[in-house]
């Protein structure tokens, strides 16, 4: 009886100590705990805590990120810059590499966009005219990089006034249509006067799908 009690107690505590962390039982147990936490709604929805005062008070630029087919939104803060691309980090460790709001790469989403030529396409998207090839790199199940090439064209739809947490922006709405071997998608960009993509709906990849981004 005592033995079972000890065992159950330790199962509840999970594994202890650094050497136990790579035990299969410990990892599976951690996974269950995380799933249970998510199911119980422990994750705070990012958009709940955001107010204009909080955004203005923040030391770093903030962005709101929400996959279209999920209910949760995440807050990202600008972390580092390499050339024209800024890497934004979320609290739980995901990252987005953006050029003025255009997604170049992601990390931590499970099926990340490992790299793309989006940074070179920024000028064409800003222009609202033209045709080009998008190149996307993803990882496959065997850790190999698979490249996806998409034929894209970009068109200007209309001028649009948008409001982001109390602040309004005059923007041009640009739509990008892309077709590839197994994929077709349309991205929407609301671009302000200085070339910042204030609000957008962009395709990351299969499984992640379309995401909404707002630069706050």
């Amino acid at each position, binding site marked *: 009886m005592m033995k079972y009690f000890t*065992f159950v107690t*330790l199962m509840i505590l999970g594994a202890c100590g650094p050497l136990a962390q790579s035990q299969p039982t410990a990892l599976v147990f951690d*996974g269950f705990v995380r799933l249970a936490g998510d199911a119980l709604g422990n994750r705070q929805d990012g958009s709940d805590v955001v107010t204009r005062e909080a955004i203005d008070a923040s030391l770093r630029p903030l962005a709101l990120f929400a996959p279209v087919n999920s209910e949760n939104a995440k807050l990202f803060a600008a972390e580092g810059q*390499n050339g024209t691309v800024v890497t934004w980090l979320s609290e739980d*460790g995901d990252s987005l590499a953006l050029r003025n709001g255009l997604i170049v790469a992601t*990390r931590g989403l*499970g099926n990340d966009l490992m790299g793309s030529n989006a940074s070179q396409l920024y000028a064409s998207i800003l222009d609202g005219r033209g045709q080009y090839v998008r190149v996307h790199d993803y990882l*496959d199940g065997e850790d190999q990089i698979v490249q996806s090439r998409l034929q894209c064209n970009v068109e200007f739809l209309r001028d649009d006034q948008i409001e982001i947490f109390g602040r309004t922006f005059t923007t041009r709405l640009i739509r990008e249509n892309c077709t590839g071997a197994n994929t077709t998608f349309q991205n929407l960009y609301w671009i302000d006067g200085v070339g910042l993509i204030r609000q957008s709906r962009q395709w990351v990849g299969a*499984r992640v799908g379309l995401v909404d981004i707002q630069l706050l």
Partner: protein
Amino acid sequence: MKLPQCCLLAVLLVTGASHVLAEDWRGSYTLYGTSGLVEMPSAFSRPDGEIGVTLGGFETQQRASFSFQVTPRFSGTFRYARFAEFTGPGTGDTYDRSFDLQYQVLTEGPLRPAVAIGLRDFLGTGLYTGEYVVASKTLLPNFRTTIGLGWGRLASEGGFENPLGVLDRSFLERPRLDSGVGGTPSWDQFFRGDAAVFGGAEWQINDQWLATAEYSSDSYQRETRVGVVARENPFNFGLSYTPQPDYAISAYSLGNSDIGLSATVILDPKTRIAASGFEPAPVPVAARNGVVVPTESTVQAATAAALMKEGIVLQSLSISDSTAFVRFANERYRAEAQALGRVARVLTTTLPPEVESFVLEPTRSGLSLSRVTIRRSDMEDLENRPDAAATGFARSTITEAQATPEDAGVALQNDRFAWGLAPYYALQLFDGSNPLRGEYGLQGDIRFALRPNLFLEGTARYRVSSNRSGARVSDSVLQPVRRNVALYGQERDIAIQDLALHWYERPGQSLYSRVSLGYLERMFAGASAEILWKPVDSRLALGAELNYVVQRDYDLGFGAQDFEEIGGIYDVVTGHGSVYYDFANDFHGRIDVGRYLAGDWGATVALDREFPNGWRVGAYATLTDVPFEDFGEGSFDKGIRVTIPLDWALGTATRGNTDVRLSSLSRDGGARLDIDGRLYDTVRDGHVAALQDGWGRFWR
């Protein structure tokens, strides 16, 4: 020779086919766990690398099978079957292992059917033994047919004179199976004796439902004779439900007299739900902008702290002119390339701007495995670009790590003592008399490092479940070096699994050595020394190992077991010379020659399919000078082993693996010491082949 009328019709159907190929078919697994119809095989292969685990059966027979598509044309299946009421109603059960092979000789073409040849239960004691040649063709996008010729058990229904008899008269008679102790291929039986036709059709109703019908050439002759099976006719029907690609559930009507059920779990090592994983993002590359130059000691402290967050331990860092030399131990990422990428990124944020070249040495057990040189400018240029991984790999150089580095720098003080406490479970499947034996409890690990390459490591277990008593220990003329494994740890609940001092060194360029002293594994204690020659970019490696061990006490304490039969403790000198070869196409071969634990001499051959993501599936066989009769049931040691990387299964970054071994009963012939930390697996992760396989994760 006469062919039944129905079979002529089937032949016509097959040859008058349309141009449809089987590409989107899910297909199904049979009750035997192979690709096929209901019980009969078909010529279609499963997708390359697929693993199917099937549990199925009917009233008096149940089968658990493990099937692997080794190459696009070649597949093997291991099966464990229970025969209830084996010798008649009311009698006891028998458990039997069997192994199948199938090779697809011709793939399906627009007009050509797929053709395969197969051996069913060709080792073992022959309850299912049969051979076949089969052809299959997709006639319509959702309809395909199969027809084949079977021998042995697959000719028990409607058998006729063997058509191969025209080649040689000896094919006409099938000699009685003299399996002896089983486990050897029954060469003199293959394709002999009467043959019979079998066939069937599959109809893919929609994405999730598949219907199958077959004419079976297996009449369950022995089972009918003893009165446990009574098939009314040779027709079987099945219905399979496959809601997801990962599993299928099927129901069957067998000969209008039995209902069969099966469930299959399908694993595809090549696909992963979250291919890039959910681990946190790496540090972004920091471009150099005229930063203040920090002193070396703060650089080291900042780098060590930043790497610790990534699960990487910095072991030494030194800067000389524009080159930084970094040695680190990756404890988190399965792909060493991913650790290299993380280290390089961190270095761009902590090193002074004049450092242009990063010389990185991944280590394991204190051994530097290789030397990877990466330019900081490449890190800045390639981040987030397409082809970043391939371009980066081409621009970096990988060479041998220096044996005694002159640029050791200041070795940092790392934590010396580590411990862990976690629940554990240990399962033993398909023991001769029991399909499943298990135990679970608490496991404690300790590790005390005097230096990174000299450390004491130990594991102790406290068993919570009731002990596995009643395991049978069979008789043999050999010293019970493995046969009595069930007696170990039976009495007491606390056991010392292992406790040993390990010392790793690099005696020279491309040379690695290990010396271990102590309680090396569960059953043996002593001394073990090993040396390995493996150049960083070589497919070939050579190794040698020499051990002197004493058999431990059954109570898994600190003592040695006293054996009455030999008048004292059992000690033995064992050793092997090994050749390892990494073939280019995901295959890996290994040969070990030497002396095994029971004092026998022989060789082990192993062949594994190694996927770049850490999955391994392979088989091995050991032949020694122990005669088959002395070895016992199974004749010689052979088995299948599967390694599943845990990051593949769970999506988090971890170096952990689960190893599954399906092998003959624990026998004494061909037994090797089971030591953790042998050199080849320690060292190969940091060499060119493994780095190249995993370089896709460099930027992850």
